[in-house]
């Protein structure tokens, strides 16, 4: 795909590269620098260092310009963006009802078997949701389950700091309001 003209155009450059390589490899016996060259090198190196330190110094005396993240001190007030993907949660209204119909689309959409939808029948004989198992330890926060749900029964929660010591505690039963089975 690289055109011939591009290759031709840069043969000069590769000669330059060969020169560089050679000069470098033969520099095991470096030609000694004269004293003035040596001093100049130290001086110019020091000058460029000072220029950089002038910049860092300007930030030092103007702390207002610095953007810092006060985390974890602000974890109580920290607000995530609306689309933030924490973990999957099931939306419950005031009466503790959810709108999941146990259709199982999210289970099929999930790439790694994170979700298991166990349907059951209510007294009237209609198919309803029994247990909605969500395994956070397998979830890749890919959002596919949320996109596919036709009833918007699940969404991404905004909680962060999801680490735990026990991997069993990462399995949630989402249709329980507390998330535990």
């Amino acid at each position, binding site marked *: 795909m690289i055109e011939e003209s591009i290759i031709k155009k840069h043969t000069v450059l590769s000669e330059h*590269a060969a020169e560089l390589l050679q000069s470098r490899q033969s520099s095991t016996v470096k030609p000694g620098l004269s004293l003035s060259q040596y001093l100049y090198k130290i001086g110019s190196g020091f000058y460029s260092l000072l220029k950089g330190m002038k910049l860092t110094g300007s930030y030092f005396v103007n702390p207002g310009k610095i953007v810092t993240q006060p985390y974890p001190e602000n974890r109580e007030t920290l607000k995530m963006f*609306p689309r933030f993907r924490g973990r999957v949660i099931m939306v419950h209204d005031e009466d503790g009802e959810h709108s999941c119909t146990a259709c199982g689309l999210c289970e099929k*959409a999930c790439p790694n078997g994170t979700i298991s939808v166990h349907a059951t029948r209510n007294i009237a004989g209609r198919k309803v949701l029994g247990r909605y198992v969500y395994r956070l330890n397998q979830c*890749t926060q*890919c959002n596919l389950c949320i996109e596919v749900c036709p009833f918007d029964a699940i969404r991404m929660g905004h909680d962060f700091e999801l680490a735990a010591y026990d991997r069993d505690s990462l399995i949630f039963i989402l249709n329980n309001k507390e998330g535990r089975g």
Partner: protein
Amino acid sequence: MEINHLQAPPGFTDTAAAEATTEEYYLNMGPQHPGTHGVLRLVLRLDGENVQEVVPHLGYVHRAIEKMAENQTYLQNIHLTDRLDYLSSFMNNLGLCMAIEKGLGIGVPERGEYIRVMLCELQRIQSHLLWWGVLGMDMGAVTAFLYGFKEREMITDIFEEVCGNRLTMNFFRPGGSSADVPDTFLPRVATVIERLKRALDEYQTLLTDNIIFQERTRGIGVLSREKALSYGCTGPVLRGSGVQYDGRKNNPYSIYERFDFEVPVGQGGDSFDRYLVRMEEMAQSIKIVQQAMETFPTGPYRSKEFSKYRIPTGSYFSQVETARGLLGIYMVADGTAKPYRLKYRSPSFSNLSAINEMAVGYKIADLITIISTLDLVIPDIDR
């Protein structure tokens, strides 16, 4: 694997010579080494601290993504591409989506294309900022690390607002993206672009103009034009060696041919050239984002969604220029909802294979610089 110091470990070319001299020895660099940027293991043949030969050993983070792909639907596969080169996840998403779009013969609405290009270019800047900071830190300048991450955080915040994740985006879908950008997107991008322009000048003062930094990169790790081409290097590594090839310019995809930008090339292929190419690429990406902001259209962000993505039998290829080079995606479809075979040609793998060519004759400290200017992402190599 245990390394016997008398016998050359596998992979070295010059076994007899290695046994003849007593000064040469073998050393493991990695898999746990901060300079290798991940679980990469390099076995070095050293003479004192001069590098004689480098043999990379791969596979520590191999997850068989290409095999997994055969058991996942096309839509599910997009989230696996995030995990190739995790610093270019938007561009990886784009590559797979373009292959799927080719298979289905569907297009992308104008706004969808603009969203794609803007996010990809912002991510190129973000990825280069991380590289710049880490390069500084590898060479002992922790200041660079902190400054690079400061601006990177602003871009990451935009991504978090747009798609909810900071690293593994899974945002683009065949025919567009999974959601529209929020109203705050354009103003936020404008702020970041303004800040970045000033930041690039700061970076110049901090690192580029620093004589000590230049002494440690000029003439180090020279990769000639021919070698870069024959190893299949792409991206800034190839351009640093003087080949003006960029997938966005020479093989334009999406709507890149509408934007006016330059492809920077290096002179001699040393570490400093690769450095300058990446610094200039950031400036060029800023230019592209600015042009896109001026003509950002309204309208739909995604063409019609399918309930099931079944791709007709055939093979499809697409390629994107990620922050590290060319990512090629070869997809064989058999008419079902899952690919028959999905092959990724990852840029970091080819770039790494040139390491022996670049490192021989330099010191170990220079090897760290060389690895850093190759900008390797290990999960991209192993897949």
